[in-house]
């Protein structure tokens, strides 16, 4: 029956009773009362300290223990700098790589846009029942209807990405990403220019009437030298003077952070800022380039907004069934991925996350292995601490504290690594990412992620060995006294096998990517890869009429053809491996283009006579385009074998006729071999070529056949610049460069995996060495006995090497099995087979050789054991 619930009072009473009893006892032995009380106090010790000790138990025990553990952990780690260095390095690489990739993901996907009240903003896209996996933008006229008939948005604006030529006195001409926007764009986003003004209502009314632009902070700095008086002046956009109305704040990129928009123009500037295709289709409801952004009215829920959009979509489908049937409107968070690009980004991010995840996992295994090795050495210490009363929990806590300390150091180092690897990654970035597009600074979310993965890491590598060690220690004392333990050793064997397996997987994947790159480079792209130089330019954007443009193109071809070392020159809008051209709906003779069930979407190109010869694409049958194909003569087309196969299998395609939605018929006059389209090694797509002599194309590349493509680039550029100083020239490269760039994903994977595989193999080698050295030292007597009984050094060598070979082979077997399963996931990124035998064999060979090399030293040491000393040792 407790009289008092306060534990402090209880203790106080207990102590008083104790002292009283003790004093009485002593008085009974004949002491005076005063003496007895003093003696009782002496025997008790310091009362205050006792009280404090107890109180500490109640309150600060955990904190006290933590400090103690930290101090102890620090001392222990300080004594093994080699271990700490290896552990921190491997963890730092793992954590760093993950942080780097997450920084990218964060910048692309997660960071909220720097816009006013961004949660009230939504992006609106068109979904089509016929193409459920794709999302489309909206046509201009649909936009106007949505804007005017909805009752859920305060403001609705439209934006479409375009590319324009930019020139000023301050910098060389450039081609930059721009956005064609409705006049209320900045008001909808709730952002105003830092300097100057946004667009005025009258500036998006009349086509081509008001040439005005708002530029990004980055363009202002890079292209206009940060001139503060630039507003009110003009810059040349597509060779027309545009009034600079305002400059946006730094890091404002609209709603799409990936593209790095340099400037915004009202969409009614489209006659000047866009190309023919755009111009002709601008008012058609079939043409859907606009992303819509709506700002929801206060109090309107997303469900209400969505329902309203669905109603509008139904009305649009009824009013304009040709364009809007089976279509509806969907909402997305603003600033999320553009759903029209999701697939690419998700694939890339998924691949990167997987790779860095494996890196971190291998690092954890490495460190766990190292820790386990240390446990073996520290058995004595563990056993003694255990026996003088340290509980298992306390020991586990102790080891986890050591792990946490390691993790802390690794996290800090990892942040440094991530900074560096981000820079490296940036070098490898796909060309579609602009340099200023992403904000890659460390923020709280990235930091949180890093800390989270660090904690998981700590659990992974520190907890398991700690539990194992604390258990082993207890059993061990009973079983064999203080010494080594077979259990720990078998644990280490398991880890080493796992490590060998993992490094093998990494090496096999690296091998697959390397072989695939090699194969890709030597793959038949259907073109003369190493003999082509090229560059692109857009005459339409620069304001050339068709007649002027044709003259300039002709002049260019003649000038470049006259250069030394040039074997052939051609012009075309479709360039293998570098893209270009347009995909169009094609109709065979007799098919009604107005029936939506008809039509095949295929890539098409417009090319000059001689194009196929310059690229090295062979004619299979029929003839090439010629200057005799004129505007007045029947329009002709050349198709590739894939197209002949798709539409006229087993028939002669020559003489067949095809058409597009708004065009006459084109007669097939030639068939060429297949060539690479966007990437090398992909299954050939059907492609149709038309003649530049009959179809004018203002946005083209000039292609030069030469033995020195790199050297000729500068000369060609000079010739073009002499013809038009203000014309921006882009994609200046050799075909080899184009191939190299198109292979960025496998290249990045190959280099990451090679580094990772090499690193983990190195750590596996250290692990094998440790285990074998330990095993030899444990078996000294046995080996000594064998030697004494006449076993030759060779047989001892074989015995030890055999043991490590078994470990290695077990790891290799596991690694190969896992690889066979796992490499299927990267098969889409590979050229050639995902079960490429040489990659598997080479990687396995390297791993086995490394394992044998690592155990050679311990094995040789075993042969030198002196039987006499070994047998006398205990």
């Amino acid at each position, binding site marked *: *029956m*407790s*009289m008092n619930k306060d534990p402090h009072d*209880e*203790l106080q*009473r*207990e*102590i008083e*009773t*104790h002292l009283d*009893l*003790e004093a009485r*006892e002593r008085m009974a032995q004949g002491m005076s009362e005063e003496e007895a009380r003093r003696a009782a106090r002496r*025997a*008790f*010790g*310091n*009362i205050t*300290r*006792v009280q404090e*000790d*107890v109180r500490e*138990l*109640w309150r600060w025990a955990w904190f006290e223990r933590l400090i103690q553990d930290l101090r102890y952990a620090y001392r222990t780690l300080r004594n093994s700098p080699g271990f700490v260095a290896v552990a921190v390095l491997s963890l730092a690489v793992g954590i760093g790589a993950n942080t780097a990739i997450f920084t990218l993901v964060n910048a692309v996907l997660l960071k909220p846009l720097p816009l006013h009240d961004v949660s009230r903003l939504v992006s609106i896209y068109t979904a089509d029942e016929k193409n459920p996996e794709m999302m489309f933008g909206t046509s201009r006229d649909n936009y106007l209807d949505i804007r005017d008939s909805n009752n859920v948005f305060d403001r609705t604006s439209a934006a479409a990405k375009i590319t324009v030529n930019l020139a000023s006195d301050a910098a060389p001409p450039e081609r930059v990403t721009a956005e064609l926007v409705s006049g209320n764009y900045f008001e909808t986003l709730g952002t105003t220019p830092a300097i100057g003004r946004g667009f005025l209502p009258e500036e998006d009314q009349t086509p081509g009437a008001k040439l005005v632009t708002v530029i990004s902070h980055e363009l202002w700095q890079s292209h206009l030298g940060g001139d503060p008086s630039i507003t009110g002046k003009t810059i040349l956009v597509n060779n027309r003077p545009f009034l600079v109305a305002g400059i946006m704040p730094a890091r404002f990129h609209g709603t799409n952070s990936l593209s790095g928009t340099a400037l915004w123009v009202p969409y009614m500037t489209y006659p000047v800022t866009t190309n023919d295709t755009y111009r002709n289709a601008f008012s058609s409801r079939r043409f859907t380039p606009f992303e819509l952004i709506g700002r929801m009215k206060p109090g309107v829920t997303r469900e209400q907004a969505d329902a309203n959009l669905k109603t509008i979509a139904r009305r649009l489908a009824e009013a304009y069934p040709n364009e809007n049937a089976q279509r509806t409107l969907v909402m997305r968070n603003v600033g999320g991925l553009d759903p029209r690009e999701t697939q690419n980004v998700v694939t890339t991010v998924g691949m990167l996350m997987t790779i860095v995840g494996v890196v971190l996992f291998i690092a954890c295994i490495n460190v766990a292995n190292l820790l386990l090795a240390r446990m073996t050495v520290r058995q004595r210490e563990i*056993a*003694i601490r*255990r*026996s*003088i*009363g*340290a*509980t298992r929990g306390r020991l586990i806590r102790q080891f986890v504290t050591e792990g946490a300390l390691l993790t802390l150091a690794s996290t800090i180092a990892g942040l440094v690594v991530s900074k560096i690897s981000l820079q490296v990654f940036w070098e490898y970035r796909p060309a579609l990412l602009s340099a200023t597009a992403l904000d890659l600074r460390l923020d709280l979310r990235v930091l949180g992620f890093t800390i989270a993965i660090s904690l998981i890491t700590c659990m992974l590598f520190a907890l398991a060995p700690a539990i194992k060690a604390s258990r082993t220690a207890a059993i061990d*004392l*009973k079983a064999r*006294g*203080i010494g080594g333990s077979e259990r720990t050793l078998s644990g280490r064997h398991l880890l080493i096998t796992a490590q060998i397996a993992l490094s093998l997987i990494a090496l096999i994947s690296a091998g697959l990517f390397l072989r695939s790159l090699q194969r890709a480079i030597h793959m038949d792209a259907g073109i003369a890869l190493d003999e082509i130089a090229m560059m692109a330019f857009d005459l339409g954007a620069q304001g050339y009429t068709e007649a002027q443009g044709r003259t300039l193109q002709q002049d260019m071809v003649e000038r470049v053809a006259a250069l030394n070392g040039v074997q052939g020159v051609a012009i075309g809008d479709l360039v293998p491996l570098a893209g270009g051209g347009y995909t169009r709906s094609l109709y065979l003779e007799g098919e009604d283009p107005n029936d939506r069930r008809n039509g095949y979407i295929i890539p098409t190109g417009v090319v000059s006579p001689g194009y196929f010869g310059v690229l090295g694409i062979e004619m299979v049958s029929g003839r090439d385009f010629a200057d005799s194909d004129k505007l007045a003569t029947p329009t002709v087309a050349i198709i590739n074998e894939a197209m002949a196969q798709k539409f006229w299998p087993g028939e002669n395609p020559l003489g067949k006729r095809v058409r597009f939605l708004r065009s006459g018929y084109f007669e097939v006059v030639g068939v060429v071999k297949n060539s690479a389209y966007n990437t090398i090694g992909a299954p050939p797509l059907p492609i149709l070529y038309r003649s530049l002599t009959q179809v004018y194309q203002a946005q083209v590349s000039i292609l030069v056949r030469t033995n020195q493509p790199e050297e000729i680039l500068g000369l060609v550029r000079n010739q073009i610049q002499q013809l038009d100083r203000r014309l921006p020239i882009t994609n200046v490269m050799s075909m080899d460069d184009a191939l190299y760039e198109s292979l960025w994903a496998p290249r990045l994977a190959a280099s990451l995996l090679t580094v990772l595989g090499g690193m983990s193999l190195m750590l596996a080698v250290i692990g094998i060495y440790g285990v074998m050295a330990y095993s030899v030292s444990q078996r000294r007597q046995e080996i000594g006995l064998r030697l004494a009984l006449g076993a030759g050094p060779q047989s001892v060598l074989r015995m030890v090497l055999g043991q490590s070979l078994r470990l290695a082979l077990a790891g290799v077997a596991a690694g190969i099995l896992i690889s066979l399963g796992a490499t299927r996931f990267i098969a889409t990124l590979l050229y050639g087979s995902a079960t490429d035998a040489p990659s598997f064999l080479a990687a396995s060979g390297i791993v086995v050789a490394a394992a044998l090399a690592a155990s050679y030293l311990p094995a040789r040491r075993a042969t030198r054991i002196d039987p006499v000393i070994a047998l006398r040792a205990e």
Partner: protein
Amino acid sequence: MPKNSKRPSLIQGTLDLLILRTLLFGPCHGHGIAKHIQRTSEDVLQVEHGSLYPALRRLEDSGCISSKWESTDSGRDMRFYKLTAKGRKQLEIEESHWEQLANAMTRILRTVRGDT
């Protein structure tokens, strides 16, 4: 520990063992436990009485012992400690550890002497 001391002072953790061992004979209050330890070790182990109480709290926290206030025959209210089932098990483990440690220490000390 002071070098010239003839009586070894207690290593932490050993005190727990001694307390548990004492309680094996039945519930007891703090003072009684101190006296019992002193008596049974024939005064070799000198327990500072005060150090008993933090140890008792620790053992109670870990569930090895439980406590109850009770009146003694002399009418005094005293806190009595009692061994729990868990404490009994813990005692067995600690005892065997202690034996192993003692054996191991003996062996080590002997080896060291033998080597030099």
